[in-house]
């Protein structure tokens, strides 16, 4: 089983939703579409499902061109962010409906529905109507319906986004296990980098209708091909600093300088964009060759055991994720430290020049 998009593009009313995209998904894989809102995740998914027809390019399923094929004939299953069930049917009939349409026998249907309901912990609610269930149960009903269909391609469009935190954690842990056995191609859209990392598999990062990178999730996280991918795959977003390498010095801002240490010392002279993740910004000097910056503290957010510090570094907004609860004065200048091993170096065009040393090691 394989799904291949070849130069698939979609625009609506002159607005480009998806730039020409090539993507090949293989059987038994979890593929995460990661990108911010309106980056094209849902558009891309609808093209895969056949709900929309691309303006150009082709979609291949098992090597067969299925570009214009009706969605009914595609053998796909899809779960939406909204809890979509058939309100007039019971949960049982909801789950059974795709199988009934496939012409399965009653005993086959019954066995499959009960198995799926068991997996999704819906067994006691089979006789109820979907709208009498809680949000999490409604979404599990939708997931069960996608599961019983045994489709080759299962599309999950932010299935957990409208659920409360606890249920999300629970379902997120279950989903990869449940679907792994099925051996289908899974596509899972999400806005959250953390979710992509937890789900594993492959990730395609999307930005303004373009797939910026596609590959195994950990390697995309550690070695983003460009600054855009790095920004998408980092939450809070990656911090950037425009630097100029000159000899053994790094020049930035209006005249500040820092010694080029670690991996940075190997760079050729020129201008670059340095990027580093918020959790790598530190308030204390932990390593000897750490670079020191002075930034103004704009906002702090305390999330129980961690503190988000929003800093203003010569006009650039940085976010730091600091362990522990800190009592900091707003508006004060704060020395912050950065291990050069945690710095990604991008060219001015955005392409990755050197990944961070820690990522190479991992």
């Amino acid at each position, binding site marked *: 089983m394989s799904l291949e998009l070849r130069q698939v593009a979609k625009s609506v009313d002159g607005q480009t939703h998806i730039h020409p995209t090539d993507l090949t998904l293989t059987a038994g894989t979890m593929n995460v579409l990661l990108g911010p809102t309106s980056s094209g995740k849902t558009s891309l998914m609808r093209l895969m499902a056949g709900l929309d027809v691309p303006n150009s390019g082709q979609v291949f399923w098992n090597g067969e061109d299925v570009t214009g094929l009706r969605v009914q004939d595609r053998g796909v299953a899809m779960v939406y962010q909204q809890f979509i069930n058939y309100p007039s049917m019971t949960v049982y009939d909801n789950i059974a*409906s795709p199988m009934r349409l496939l012409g399965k026998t009653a005993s086959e249907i019954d066995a499959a529905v009960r198995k799926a309901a068991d997996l999704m912990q819906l067994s006691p609610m089979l006789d109820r109507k979907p709208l009498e269930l809680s949000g999490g149960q409604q979404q599990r009903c939708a997931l069960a319906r996608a599961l019983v269909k045994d489709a080759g391609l299962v599309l999950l469009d932010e299935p957990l986004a409208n659920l409360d935190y606890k249920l999300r954690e629970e379902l997120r842990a279950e989903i990869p296990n449940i679907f792994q056995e099925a051996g289908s191609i899974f596509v899972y859209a999400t806005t959250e980098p953390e979710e992509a990392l937890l789900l594993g598999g492959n990730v395609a990062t999307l930005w303004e209708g373009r797939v910026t990178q596609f590959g195994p999730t950990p390697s995309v996280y550690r070695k983003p091909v460009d600054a855009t991918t790095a920004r998408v795959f980092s939450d809070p977003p990656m911090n950037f600093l425009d630097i100029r390498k000159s000899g053994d010095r790094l020049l930035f801002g209006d005249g500040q300088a820092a010694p080029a240490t670690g991996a940075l010392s190997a760079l050729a002279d020129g201008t670059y964009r340095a990027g580093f993740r918020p959790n790598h910004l530190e308030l204390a000097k932990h390593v000897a060759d750490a670079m020191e910056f002075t930034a103004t503290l704009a906002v702090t957010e305390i999330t129980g055991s961690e503190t988000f510090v929003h800093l203003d570094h010569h006009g650039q907004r940085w976010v730091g994720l600091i362990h522990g609860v800190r009592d900091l004065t707003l508006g004060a200048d704060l020395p912050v430290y950065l291990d050069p091993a945690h710095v990604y170096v991008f060219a001015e065009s955005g392409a990755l020049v050197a990944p961070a040393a820690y990522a190479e090691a991992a």
Partner: protein
Amino acid sequence: MTDTAQAPGAASLPGRATEAPAVARRKLPIKGSVVVMTLYLVFLLLPIYWLLNMSLKTNTEILNSFTLWPRDLTFANYATILTDPAWYSGYINSLIYVSINVVITLVVALPAAYAFSRYHFMGDKHLFFWLLTNRMAPPAVFALPFFQLYSSVNLFDTHIAVALAHCLFNVPLAVWILEGFMRGVPKEIDETAYIDGYSFPRFFVKIFMPLIASGIGVAAFFAFMFSWVELLLSRTLTSVDAKPIAATMTRTVGAAGIDWGVLAAAGVLTIVPGALVIYFVRNYIAKGFALGRV
């Protein structure tokens, strides 16, 4: 919702005014709101009561005395209507063309409303508004063209003629009502059904129509009511075979003068079907008046 919320407040205003002086309250135990409501109901129900009252009296009593209730109770008027074919065929004719009209209206309006709620096409908004303007023209305008047209194609004095003529008014209204209800159903349900493998007709009947059942009921109600009470077109387009009850009622002046009691009984029987239909859709009627856009 806002109407019901305002009503008790508005009604309590006079009540509060009488409460203010304690002495006045003792002298006036009847609340202002009760008085207002009673007067309102009396004026609203008086004509209906009087109709019922008349239908149970003899012509002599109606013409010669003023009585608040029938002194000489009789069901002869009703018996006349239910046994005389000239009378009851009017009801049958009306029911036939009203039923045909409701069926045609729904069959035509359901797909049209679905198209308006789900697809964008050139001029869709203008077309949608133009539909409603059809209702703004008085039926009298269409009496002449319909009469001439139906006469020339031999449809004159048939049930289908009246049913089709009423569709001109009912289809646009039904499209408006149904479109509002359909818009409330997320498009994702349609897509999920297609993904599950439902063909469009099957999806529409099995999944979509149950979701907008109340809308269909309300649209059918409005089509029924218009067609049931409309007099001008139905009278113009029929003579004998499809003569509606409303026409029978307005043409009943015999040699012996007007038969008041029978006319009143006919009036009561004409109200009954409408009242029954209203009873069945009472819970959805407010949403229907808002054209589903609540």
